[in-house]
């Protein structure tokens, strides 16, 4: 295919409106959507569920299903309006020039076809090549998406490989024909955190490797930051803000974007340094949107007569090139004041120990009825869902239990609540052993003192009964209310407690939003005099803007009532906000436990370290160590020998990790780590998340206002001995320390030093002449990001190479471009000629 003209956008959406037609009439799912994707650029679309992200993606593919239709605007692919294309032309483009990756990898692969066939057919139909050649290319592509043993994957059915591998296959399938545009719709939402990190790493590299433009859809701002150059924020069917990543993250000009940032937890912060501020209210349904600004009813800056007059349009933000918002009053808002303020922490006095878990074990017996098992006499095996759990919780304390799927969190909850009995060890609540008592044998008072909040808001309430009757039933069960009147009275009190109107008692669950249902769930858990509340991922299924409110409510009630809370979660950023102590589990065992601050700072358990590094962070000022775990989560049915984490541990010492279960090391203050690494080695670890708190860094940042991140990067390089000021390429990469993640083969492993780190700073090509380069200018540097195609990351790279001003770039000659191309280690991605053109234009201004 001929190289397309680099100055035409790959994709351009102009005033696109999309509607669904349902029984209730036309639902305008997306209104007046604009977006431009340049060659090699990665654009993110972020927004809460139902705001129209997927609809946009499917509209770009021109696949609206039976009841959807694009009702206005144009969608230009390489300059041609796709809406005017014939079905034949669309088919040519789909899968070859635009392709898509979906949220559910398992569902998007055909269960009854070999992966080989599903990959090859793309090439066979689009390029007309032979089966063999197609197979060859497919294998190469599987290799490129870093799948181990591509041949085996080719010969498998989708269900025979893991979720992370499936998603890599889907990505490979999308890339096979070297598309110009790749759409990714929440590609990692269905994956575990550590697996997600690997896939994100891959996605980041795609554009470098293949020069593909990307549209990355996600509800997670942190992922967008890691992968994209530009970002569109959507709210209720409209894009409300569009700009480069640094503009939107650091200088947002829309109250919704601000609110979104204020309501998401960041792993670098806790509830005192940066309290969460929820956005009040909830998303309007598409047919209930207000006149004027859709965000009006939830906006703190709403002004009658301005915001609710007529439909708003995107307008350019003055002084921000390429930055647009859909807000009438953005100039009247004090954007500094809108940031959350730190609050003084109240000291919590924990009470006596309420709950003691001592060496608790829970094994499930699984029967293997295969002939082989019967003959070898191993017909029944044990799955060690929980092995030797050992921790305590005090009154008014929140203990978070963190881990990925299958690590035994839910099993633990079941034992606590008496749905299962422990296989061994003890669970002592208030001095009484309860691990062996099922819920039916517990007294009502005991049952009431240990309650649970469930994960899925759509399942937590019985759809057949009213909210009031469900709470009332609990009150009666626990003997808290003796009769109907009393139950009703107490129900009202509980609704007050969770800040819901009293008439909700009459409602049925389907009339409540997700957040409201979760509140009812909380009310129900606190109906008895709960001493311990087990909360199983209570907010993970809620939208980000609602999460903060529910989390806040939950912790408030828990503090006030001095209840002990066991908070089960996979999300380390949420946990930091509300936990006092953290227990990190992996494959049924506790890897590390300690006070929250101990967990989030070194020494770490290697698994905790990886988990922390896998959390996407929506904060441009934070640098993070990148640890990508190899391999997949082992199945609890078949756990590895020795240390459970040994199959994926980047710090594995060697044979000892494979053979022996490590002892638990007490590092003081209740901080315990189960690992063979010596205490010194553990203590020698560096922080995974680096914040610009350091004085020096702050100073550096001040010297370069508005460019905190670039400066920070530069500053941290300066701090690394041996690498001095003049142009350092890929500054940011240098700043983050990359751990070697490839495990050595087991035999050699013993010889390997544990903390094998290497900084990947490349020496610049100083010998060559070429473009003019400057040292870091003392004054203000130009905003290179104004050149379309240059995102924050590229800008840093350019700075590192010694380019700080437009006029430097404007002066580039062809040979200079070639040199720069060499130094920018990703080729083909950006049309440098165009940079020069744009830089000239900018320099003239």
């Amino acid at each position, binding site marked *: 295919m001929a190289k397309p003209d680099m100055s035409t956008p790959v994709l351009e959406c102009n005033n696109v409106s999309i509607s669904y037609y349902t029984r209730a009439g036309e639902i305008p799912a997306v209104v007046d959507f604009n977006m431009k994707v340049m060659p090699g650029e990665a654009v993110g679309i972020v927004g809460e569920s139902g705001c129209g992200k997927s609809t946009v993606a499917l509209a770009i593919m021109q696949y609206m299903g039976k009841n959807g239709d694009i009702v206005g605007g144009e969608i230009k692919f390489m300059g041609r309006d796709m809406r005017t294309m014939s079905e034949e032309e669309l088919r040519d483009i789909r899968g070859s020039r635009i392709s898509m990756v979906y949220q559910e990898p398992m569902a998007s692969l055909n269960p009854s076809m070999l992966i080989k066939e599903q990959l090859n057919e793309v090439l066979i139909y689009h390029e007309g090549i032979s089966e063999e050649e197609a197979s060859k290319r497919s294998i190469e592509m599987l290799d490129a998406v870093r799948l181990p043993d591509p041949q085996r994957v080719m010969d498998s059915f989708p269900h025979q490989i893991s979720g992370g591998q499936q998603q890599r296959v889907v990505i490979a399938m999308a890339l096979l024909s070297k598309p110009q545009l790749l759409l990714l719709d929440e590609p990692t939402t269905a994956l575990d955190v550590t697996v997600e990190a690997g896939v994100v790493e891959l996605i980041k590299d795609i554009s470098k490797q293949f020069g593909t433009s990307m549209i990355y859809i996600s509800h997670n701002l942190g992922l967008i930051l890691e992968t994209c150059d530009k970002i569109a924020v959507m709210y209720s069917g409209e894009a409300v803000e569009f700009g480069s990543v640094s503009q939107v993250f650091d200088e947002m000009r829309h109250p919704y974007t601000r609110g979104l940032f204020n309501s998401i937890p960041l792993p670098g912060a806790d509830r005192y340094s940066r309290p969460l501020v929820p956005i009040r209210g909830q998303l309007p349904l598409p047919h209930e949107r207000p006149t004027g600004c859709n965000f009006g009813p939830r906006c703190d800056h709403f002004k009658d007569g301005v915001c609710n007059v007529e439909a708003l349009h995107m307008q350019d933000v003055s002084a921000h090139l390429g930055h647009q918002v859909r807000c009438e009053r953005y100039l009247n808002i004090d954007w500094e004041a809108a940031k959350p303020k730190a609050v003084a922490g109240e000291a919590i006095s924990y009470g006596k120990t309420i709950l003691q878990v001592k060496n608790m074990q829970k094994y499930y017996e699984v029967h293997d009825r295969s002939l082989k098992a019967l003959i070898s006499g191993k017909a029944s095996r044990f799955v060690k869902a929980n092995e030797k759990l050992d921790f305590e919780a005090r009154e008014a304390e929140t203990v978070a239990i963190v881990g990925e799927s299958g690590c035994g969190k839910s099993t633990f909850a079941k034992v606590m609540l008496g749905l299962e009995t422990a296989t061994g060890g003890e669970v002592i609540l208030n001095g009484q052993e309860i691990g062996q008592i099922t819920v039916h044998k517990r007294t009502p008072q005991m049952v*009431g003192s240990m309650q649970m909040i469930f994960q899925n808001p759509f399942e937590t309430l019985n*759809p057949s009964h009213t909210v009031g009757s469900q709470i009332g039933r609990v009150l009666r069960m*626990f003997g808290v209310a003796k009769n109907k009147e009393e139950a009703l009275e107490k129900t009202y009190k509980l609704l007050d407690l969770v800040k819901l109107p009293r008439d909700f008692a009459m409602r049925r669950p389907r009339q409540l939003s997700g957040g409201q249902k979760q509140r009812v769930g909380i009310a129900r858990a606190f109906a008895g005099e709960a001493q311990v509340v087990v909360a199983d991922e209570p907010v993970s299924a809620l939208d980000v803007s609602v999460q903060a*409110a529910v989390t806040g409510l939950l912790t408030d009630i828990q503090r006030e009532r001095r209840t002990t809370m066991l908070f089960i979660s996979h999300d380390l950023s949420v946990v930091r906000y509300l936990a006092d102590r953290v227990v990190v589990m992996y494959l049924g065992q506790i890897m590390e436990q300690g006070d929250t601050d101990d967990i989030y700072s070194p020494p770490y358990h290697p698994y905790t370290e990886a988990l922390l590094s896998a959390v996407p962070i929506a904060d441009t000022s934070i640098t993070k160590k990148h640890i990508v775990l190899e391999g997949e989560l082992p199945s609890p049915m078949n756990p590895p020998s020795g240390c459970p984490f040994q199959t994926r541990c980047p710090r594995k010492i060697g044979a000892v990790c494979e053979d022996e279960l490590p002892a638990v090391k007490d590092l003081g203050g209740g901080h315990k780590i189960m690992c063979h690494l010596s205490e010194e080695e553990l203590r020698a670890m560096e922080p995974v998340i680096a914040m610009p708190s350091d004085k020096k860094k702050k100073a550096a940042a001040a010297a370069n206002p508005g460019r905190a991140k670039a400066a920070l990067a530069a500053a941290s390089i300066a701090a690394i001995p041996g690498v001095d000021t003049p142009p350092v390429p890929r500054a940011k990469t240098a700043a983050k320390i990359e751990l070697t993640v490839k495990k050595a083969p087991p035999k050699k492993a013993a010889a390997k030093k544990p903390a094998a780190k290497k900084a990947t700073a490349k020496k610049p090509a100083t010998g060559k002449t070429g473009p003019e380069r400057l040292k870091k200018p003392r004054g203000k540097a130009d905003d290179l990001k104004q050149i379309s195609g240059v995102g924050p990351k590229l800008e840093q790279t350019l700075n590192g190479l010694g380019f700080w001003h437009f006029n430097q770039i404007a002066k580039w000659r062809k040979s200079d471009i070639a040199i720069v191309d060499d130094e920018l280690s990703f080729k083909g991605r950006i049309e440098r000629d165009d940079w020069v053109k744009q830089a000239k234009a900018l320099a003239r201004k």
Partner: protein
Amino acid sequence: MTDTTAEQTNTPDSNSGLKKFLSSFSLLRESWVGMIGLFLVVFWVSIAIFVDLLPLQDPLAQTRGAINLPMLTEDKKGIMHWMGTDDRGRDLLARLLHGSRVVLFWSTLATIVAYSVGMLMGVTAGYRGGWWDEIISFMGNVLLSFPQIVLLLVILTAFGPNSNVGVWMNSTLGLGKTVVSGALIIVAITFSTAPQVARIVRGIVLDLKTRDYIAAAEVRGEGPLWIMLVELLPNARGPLIVDACLRLGYVIITIALLGFLSLGLPPPDPDWGKMISDGRQWGYNGLNIMLWPALAISSLVLGLNLLADGLREISLRD
């Protein structure tokens, strides 16, 4: 903590169960298939209820010399037989309409019994699991491995009105012939239908049982009976109502079929299935006798099937 009470919905206030049930019928208006079904069902049900009020001949009265009259003929007494008469000179229209009562009464009763038994089995098997499930499912499988007619034939020959059991019920319990036959038919239908119901209910329960609200009930210490009856079953009602409509249709067919095979209710009460087999003996002359009940059964069952279809369509919509 910011106040978030503003998080409100503007959905209408709650409905009572009855209202909701009725509203699902009003929703039927949007499915013309469902409407036709509803019309047919309501038609036959009202006939069954009000048949005594209609100006009809006596369905049992035999008119001499008016045997096998074709439709729209008057007999010697000048009485109009709209549908003609049967082989004993009885008015076919009267028999047909009175027959609807017999069919609907017994089939509804049989369906209710079979459904109750089936639901109980299904919920128990699905919720309790383990041995309960193994045993119930095995029993169900045994019964389901009989083709339905074979099972009915076996049960009704082994325990029919002429068997020891039938005779015992008749003499010792002093039950009338019709009641004995009816009771046996209900038992036979329960044996053949309940396992099917159980299988469906079990499937639904297995799905519902993993929901968090069931765990919530367990966690607060509810007993299995409460969970099965109060927490599980009400949520299964959507698909079960649809299935019950279909099932009732099938039971109607079965009862008529038993009549056709002369294993049904004893004469002389009008029975659509029996009418067909009566007519069959008379070849061309009996066509009249056969055709009307055939159409009647078909239209009633069609009504139920269409109604079920409409209800299913509605339930899928939201």
